[in-house]
């Protein structure tokens, strides 16, 4: 299904634009379910046996599988369709976003007096991982277009992209994570929360919903998504504070937050930047505070084929640091930033939107966390679940 945004800044689509969006969502569902299943079948029937005949062993990792799959028609078909479907995600929303620029601006201005803020820093130079490439094949990346365009394209594009699997407000990741933390650690009541690389704040909002008394902040390097996200939050009656800031050089004092969160952010960063982000998270956390990341599961916790499947985005979806991140060990990243081994934990939480809050409660209460499921964890498909990890600061 194609999702219709609920807030006032959603674009008014023509009948043709709405139909195009529905088609792209349907096409993505076809690629990610049917053609993905075909690619797995092709691997098992043809590619893996041929590799074994040639090498006397099965492929050792996703990298070897990638090389072996390149010449198989199932890989070629899946990949060509998926790349084009991704381009069509952005293409199908761009005309409405451009046409409605004025209306969007007026609605945002109307919401300006409401609680919440956005603080932009015109002197901040956006890093090259955002400006040098069209991240996710999104033209202009997070900084392109005029005014709030990039935010609107991202919001409406995600609605098409997610096929309804990221929740009605595109907040399923944040909602699932916040619910899991609240149920697993009921005594933890964060007063001040920070979301790193928050873009339009779609996964920042659910923290404010879950912890209504908390002072919730989001940072991102891209002004268009922050300006849009601030108006988006205000129009939903939520007080959030957005800052144009780089997560690897936070302009916040030491020990100023109880929870530092990120979602689908770390894999967009180079190794050096990622390490700085972890150190900054450690620095701004108060003793007893929690660093928490929702991310793709690491390659070390998946089989080689499913590792290859997830790493596809690294090469073909303009996310060049994706595999490098997934090859790293989350616990080692935390330890390197100063956290203690005993304070690390990881978990898998079912999508709250699909499985419901009782399933999250069950996962949180379980003595043994759910393991990474090769075919559903972090993957937009039926039965999706999210991988999270973090560490407490002593």
């Amino acid at each position: 299904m194609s999702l219709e945004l609920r807030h006032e800044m959603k674009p008014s689509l023509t009948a043709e634009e709405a139909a195009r969006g529905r088609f792209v969502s349907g096409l993505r569902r076809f690629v990610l379910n049917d053609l993905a299943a075909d690619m797995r079948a092709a691997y098992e029937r043809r590619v893996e046996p041929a590799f074994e005949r040639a090498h006397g062993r099965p492929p050792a990792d996703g990298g070897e599988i990638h090389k072996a799959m390149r010449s198989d028609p199932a890989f070629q078909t899946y990949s060509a369709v998926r790349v084009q479907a991704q381009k069509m995600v952005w293409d199908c929303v761009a005309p409405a976003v451009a046409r409605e620029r004025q209306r969007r601006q007026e609605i945002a201005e109307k919401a300006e007096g409401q609680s919440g803020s956005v603080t932009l820093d015109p002197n901040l130079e956006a890093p090259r991982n955002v400006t040098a490439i069209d991240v996710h094949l999104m033209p202009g990346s997070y900084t392109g277009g005029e005014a709030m365009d990039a935010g609107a394209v991202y919001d409406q594009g995600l609605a098409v992209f997610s096929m309804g699997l990221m929740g009605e407000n595109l907040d399923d990741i944040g909602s699932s994570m916040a619910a899991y933390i609240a149920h697993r650690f009921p005594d933890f009541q964060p007063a001040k929360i920070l979301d790193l690389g928050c873009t339009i704040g779609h996964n920042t909002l659910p923290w404010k919903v879950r912890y209504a008394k908390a002072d919730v902040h989001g940072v991102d390097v891209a002004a268009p998504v922050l300006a849009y996200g601030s108006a988006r939050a205000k129009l939903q009656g939520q007080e959030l504070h957005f800052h144009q800031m780089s997560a690897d050089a936070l302009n916040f004092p030491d020990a100023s937050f109880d929870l530092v969160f990120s979602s689908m952010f770390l894999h967009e960063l180079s190794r050096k930047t990622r390490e700085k982000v972890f150190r900054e998270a450690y620095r701004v956390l108060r003793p007893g505070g929690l660093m928490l990341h929702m991310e793709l599961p690491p390659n070390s916790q998946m089989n080689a084929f499913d590792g290859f499947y997830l790493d596809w985005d690294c090469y073909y979806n303009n996310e060049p640091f994706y595999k490098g991140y997934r090859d790293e060990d989350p616990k080692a990243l935390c330890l390197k930033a100063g956290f203690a081994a005993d304070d690390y934990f990881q978990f898998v939480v079912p999508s709250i939107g699909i499985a419901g809050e009782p399933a999250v409660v069950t996962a949180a209460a379980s003595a043994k966390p759910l393991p990474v499921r090769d075919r559903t964890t972090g993957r937009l498909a039926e039965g999706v679940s999210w991988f999270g990890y973090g560490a407490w600061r002593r």
Partner: protein
Amino acid sequence: MAALSDPEDPLAPPEGAPAGIFGPDGRPRFFTDPAVDRFAAALLSLASEVWVQEERLQALEARARPDETPKDPEAALKAFIDRVFAPLREP
């Protein structure tokens, strides 16, 4: 020999990228003949436009025959995609 790349540079080929996965224009290449990549993209755009016309036609038909139960749009889309792209599936 592959060119040495800076792992911090977002424009450099990702670590471990097989040779030849990008064409000279920097875009991913999947088929032996790069023209096939272009035709694949055009085919998908065309299918999208056909679906748009299908939805418009359904809207007109629903207006012309208000007593008939309209088709379930999600099921109709799935059937359309399954039918059009059946040749892409594994035999």
